[in-house]
């Protein structure tokens, strides 16, 4: 049989990296066309910084904000909030929905390896997080927050946090069996955590800060605040806590993730 060119067939043989790129490309297409994601990724963070700017724009460096200006305080926490939203929140909700409507089962029926699917999701979430961070830093500049300089530390923090919060998002999607419940559960876990971690206002309780320091959100806020506005380098202690949470999420995700809407 001459196999030089079979009409109706195309050589799609690609390496594994190509497969991840293929996956990311369509995740991105799907994501940006969804008006909801575009709004939450672009409009929400800008609006948040603008509101904080209007409220506290004139508040200079103060001890209330830990020696920072209000906007210097809020640019990293809002950036962290957006990364949380586009990694943890997005994945928990989207994966639960995809499982429920059969999209995951359909993917499982193809030769696409599971890890390629998840690496693709992670890469997609990192890209969205980078866009978010750039946007917030850009808008923050308009309110007098200077551009950061240590981009290596920022990149490291961002990628590590994105990976950890993606793992936690997949873990939550694995534990929830009902797609309708997913947004509520994901928010229910996140909302008190955000308050406790000083995302919305600085916390001056020693005890609360100690507790929050072992939970995932505050270490991320701290790890971003360092290189973004304090001009200190990578915050290894807080990054280690983040990574530990990522590992916990990954273990739960690997053990509990299901592709099939119907339980065995």
């Amino acid at each position, binding site marked *: 049989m001459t196999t030089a060119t*079979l009409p109706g067939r195309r050589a799609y043989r690609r390496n594994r990296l190509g497969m991840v790129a293929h996956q990311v490309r*369509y995740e991105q297409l*799907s994501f940006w066309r969804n008006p909801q994601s575009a709004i939450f990724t672009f409009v929400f963070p800008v609006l948040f910084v603008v509101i904080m700017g209007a409220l506290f724009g004139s508040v200079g460096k103060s001890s209330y904000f830990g020696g920072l200006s209000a906007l210097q305080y809020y640019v990293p926490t809002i950036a962290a909030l957006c990364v949380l939203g586009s990694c943890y929140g997005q994945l928990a909700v989207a994966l639960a929905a995809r499982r429920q409507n059969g999209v995951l*089962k359909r993917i499982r029926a*193809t*030769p696409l390896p599971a890890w390629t699917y998840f690496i693709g999701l992670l890469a997609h979430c990192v890209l969205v997080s980078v866009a978010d961070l750039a946007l917030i830093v850009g808008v923050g500049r308009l309110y007098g927050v200077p551009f950061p300089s240590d981009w290596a530390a920022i990149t490291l923090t961002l990628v590590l946090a994105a990976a950890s919060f993606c793992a936690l998002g997949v873990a939550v999607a694995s534990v929830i069996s009902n797609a309708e419940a997913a947004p509520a559960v994901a928010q229910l876990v996140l909302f008190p955590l955000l308050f406790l971690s000083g995302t919305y206002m600085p916390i001056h309780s020693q005890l609360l800060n100690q507790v929050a320091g072992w939970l995932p959100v505050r270490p991320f806020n701290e790890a971003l605040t360092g290189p973004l506005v304090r001009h200190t380098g990578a915050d290894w202690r807080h990054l280690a806590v983040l990574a530990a949470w990522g590992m916990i999420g990954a273990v739960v995700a690997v053990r509990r993730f299901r592709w099939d809407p119907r339980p065995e």
Partner: protein
Amino acid sequence: MQQELTRGAASAAGHPHQPESHPPDAITVAGLRKSYGSVHAVRDVSFSVRHSEIVALLGPNGAGKTTTLEILEGFRARDGGAVEVLGLDPGDRSAVRDLRERTGLVLQDIAVEPYLTVRETLARQAGYYQGPRDVPEVIGLVGLTGLEKRKVRSLSGGQKRRLDLALGLIGDPELLYLDEPTTGFDPAARRGAWDLVRELRATGTTILLTTHDMAEAQALADRVVLLNNGAVVAEGPPERLGGRDNERARISFTLPPGVPVADLPVPADIQNGAVVIESADPTGELQRLTNWAVQRDITLSGLTVDRPSLEDVYLRLTGGGAPSGAAERSLR
């Protein structure tokens, strides 16, 4: 579904994936068992599907069709019995990747992402396979030509189902599982889908389908495997299932007003307001009946002669019109 089906050089030379000496059957299932807790979903299922054959799995809800399919597809582990699909064991994790490369799947749920276009949806799926079909070719095959740039969310239910079918075909499978493939199709689209399935068989694709539509099983299947309560209760070509070809013919008509049943020249029953005569000699009994009617100037309105339909056999073998199966059909 106007486009001519071409499987490259494969139509003449056999399927390119297929080894020279492949096993005689595409699927063999022997003594399959599967329980969920105390529920025996599959008790004892054995059947086989030959290469290039269309086999329909029939049975009421809960008969074990979906569980059987999911075990064959490698989605579920079996408790007992032997299963071989394209010479591989779907329960063997190392075989699953190869199996998924060579099989296609159309599931019951419409599972497509809303914000991609028709072409993007298929191109994405095509990228998962080593040797996929051409995207425009598949779009033509399922009759979605002209809708390539439409977003999936703007498609009608029937169009989404056709896209689902296209996703099952894009990997150029040797074996295709169709789980109630034409649910939600209009009659013309259903005919088109049937033609497509027959064309696929003609080019060497093996098809295992489930359906609640007896007309579909009758029209498409070379053989029917009827499940009830987790076991095979009948198997054979649709026209001979359950000894259907040897059964008595049935003459029926509306009882003329003022005529008691006892006056009829042949023994008869009343079923659902109609006279029904089950007959081993329909020629003779029909003549006695019509002579009797003509002499009395009586019209036998709604007069029909038929043999038990596939649906009659189905209902008899699965417990006589148990409402579970019927209810689902009427809903869809």
